């Protein structure tokens, strides 16, 4: 046997060991992540409630596409997406203000971040009382003579989604602020010093130094929040309105939950879950492409 062949054989023998070592972790990941996804995909082609194994082809998808409540729910998720730019801009502004270390900035930072560490149902139930027709918000408005602004924030089909969006922004804002602050702390001081020497004011420094330096983090935050608005708002909606009034605040997760757990129609719920998975996967791929482009161009 030649020395090269022996070396190749030794290398092939040695190559198995790392795989064996990571096999348990991979198996766990497959069990927790991959198996449910494959199972849901298969279930989406099976009969909603009858014996497993009864294939119905695309009937579940057809059922969902014909259901106005599905489109209402999807539309509400799309509406929530428009909250992402608002959230991003507000988080950026707050982060910049805090980074300037105004008086009491540590306290403000704590206040901004605290909602993010509270459980969603806690926030949601609190705001349910705040937003009631005779709740705190309206009582304050009436007390200062702004009766006309006192609305049924959660009971009006037109206002319920903006009201829920405001609660989501209130909670998710802290995450963005902390992300931006962390990145801003690593921006080189020399860039700001050089800019100030050249006469750049606060706005110019923000526009030409801070925001470009934050671009990667901003894109990350935007994509994460887009995914949140598509598939992490169930707790808000369920706690605050249950999808009402009359489906006005229904979202896709609630739709999936209802069909899976309340109506025993796993096939239909799985079909919607697959559609939602496709939508969020598109966003993830976009994020990876954007981050790939940025690393290709050498930007941080």
């Amino acid at each position, binding site marked *: 046997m030649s020395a090269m062949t022996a070396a190749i054989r030794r290398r092939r023998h040695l190559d198995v060991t790392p795989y064996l070592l990571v096999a348990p972790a991979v198996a766990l990941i497959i*069990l927790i992540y991959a198996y449910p996804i494959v199972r849901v995909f298969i279930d989406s082609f099976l009969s909603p409630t009858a014996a497993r194994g009864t294939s119905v082809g695309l009937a579940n998808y057809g059922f969902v596409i014909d259901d106005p409540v599905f489109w209402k729910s999807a539309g509400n998720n799309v509406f929530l997406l428009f909250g992402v730019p608002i959230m991003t801009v507000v988080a950026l502004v707050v982060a910049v203000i805090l980074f300037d270390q105004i008086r009491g900035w540590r306290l403000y930072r704590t206040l901004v971040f605290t909602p993010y560490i509270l459980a969603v149902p806690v926030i949601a139930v609190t705001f349910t009382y705040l937003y009631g027709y005779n709740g705190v918000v309206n009582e304050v408005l009436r007390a200062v003579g702004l009766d006309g602004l006192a609305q049924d924030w*959660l009971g009006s089909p037109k206002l319920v989604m903006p009201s829920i969006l405001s609660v989501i922004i209130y909670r998710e804002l802290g995450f963005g602020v902390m992300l931006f602050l962390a990145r801003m702390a690593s921006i080189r001081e020399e860039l700001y010093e050089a800019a100030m020497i050249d006469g750049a004011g606060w706005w110019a420094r923000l526009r030409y130094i801070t925001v470009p330096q934050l671009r990667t983090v901003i894109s990350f935050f935007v994509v994460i929040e887009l995914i949140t608005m598509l598939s992490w708002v169930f707790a808000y909606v369920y706690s605050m309105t249950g999808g009402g009034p009359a489906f006005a605040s229904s979202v896709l997760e609630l739709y999936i939950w209802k069909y899976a*757990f309340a*109506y025993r129609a796993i096939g239909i719920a799985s079909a919607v879950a697959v559609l939602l998975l496709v939508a969020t996967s598109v966003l993830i791929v976009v994020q990876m492409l954007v981050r790939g482009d940025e690393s290709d161009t050498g930007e941080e």
Partner: protein
Amino acid sequence: MYRSLARLGGLAVVSSLIVVACGGSTPTTAPTAAATPAAATAAAPSAAAPSAAAPTPASTEPVSLEFWYWAESDAPGANQWMTDTVAAYKAVKPNVTINVVPQGTDTLISAFQTAAASKSGPDIASQWATGPVLSFVWSDSVAPISDLVPAAEMSHWLNTNENTYNGKVWAMPQYLLGIGLAYNTELFAKAGVTPPTGDRWTWDEFIAASAKLKAAGITPFVGGDKNGYLGAWWFANIGGQQLNSVQELAQAVVGTVPFTDPKYTGWYTNLDNYVKAGYVNNDVMSLDLDQGVRLFGQGKGAMTFTSDGMLATAIKDLGAAKVGVMRPPKLGTGTLADAGNATQSISHFVTSWSAHPQDAADFLQFMHTPDRLTAWYKATGVVAADDRFDATLVTAPQLQTMAKAETTGPQVWLENWIPPQIDGDADLPAGQMIFSGSGTPADAGQLWERSAATWRSAHPDELANWQQLVK
């Protein structure tokens, strides 16, 4: 990077397909159609229990039972009563330990759906009568109570017809719940409104009284529909008054007649007019059902729909002299317009997977012992669904009126006779449409029809069973 990801992803998918192919799951058999349809007509409260198999003796070994229990929302005080009952049972049967898990109203059905899907979970569970119970019977999740409890015992239970199917009784009633129209006598007097001389108003009289109350600056009707259940109570008490039997309702459920037929959903026009006239509290969509009823106990409204337990609470809050009760106003001309609305509301049953079905049934029987029936009433003010209940305990005249209405003549709670999906996707949101002003009565009718069609499409197995009920 992408090639590595693709390799990993492919490995994950292939591995998962192998797991799925090797694992799979035991197919659940589709429920068979009933040989004998349930008693579907409006029925008298007491019904003879069908013959039951001789129950097997309970075990003497240590037994642990889990009971998913719901009643508190209907009958405040129920959870404490259950705690006391478990303690009392422990004294009688020291080898049996019962863990009671109170259930939430919004998750009552969905939580048990999960247990039913996996055939694991509680030994005893609670579900609302007829539709919800039968849907679980049809998914083989319920053991017939008539196989576990002697016929002589069951003969004392009231309203067992609500859960009778295929010749068996599947669940046990605990209490009888009726809905009355409570009124504040003080506010009535202030507005110059006179209560009816009979036991109820006509619809026109109800409207006239509401107009007088509003003119006097009093909110005529208070309630909460944020969770949709106020609309469901209106459906159950007013909505079915054009029908002659529950089979007529089932005809629409199975698709023989459309729900848009005015006899099913025409009453939404009356409700819509009532709401638009400003006779309902302006925060109705901000409050859940029980929160809205509490407004009545706070003196913030002249009338409300109320259960026995809620009425007992209102009497405590306002004082007996200020509270009156009548039957819901008469709007329709069908046979059901004159039927009572008492139901057992919640039913308790032994699950099909319980390892100790006889012990579970024994505990359910214990809940009907005279001592427990008396304690139940003292704790909740709600009449027990048992002819051994000591009616002399009901001393408040208002509660006597409710008890008499609940035990006299045929009784139908219409909401029991629709599948849970139609209840959740039509009954509840249709009422929300009207109370929030976001839809018209025609929209409400369309919603019922669409929801029924959706249910029929998604549940062909249950449709077959409901068609048997209709026959």
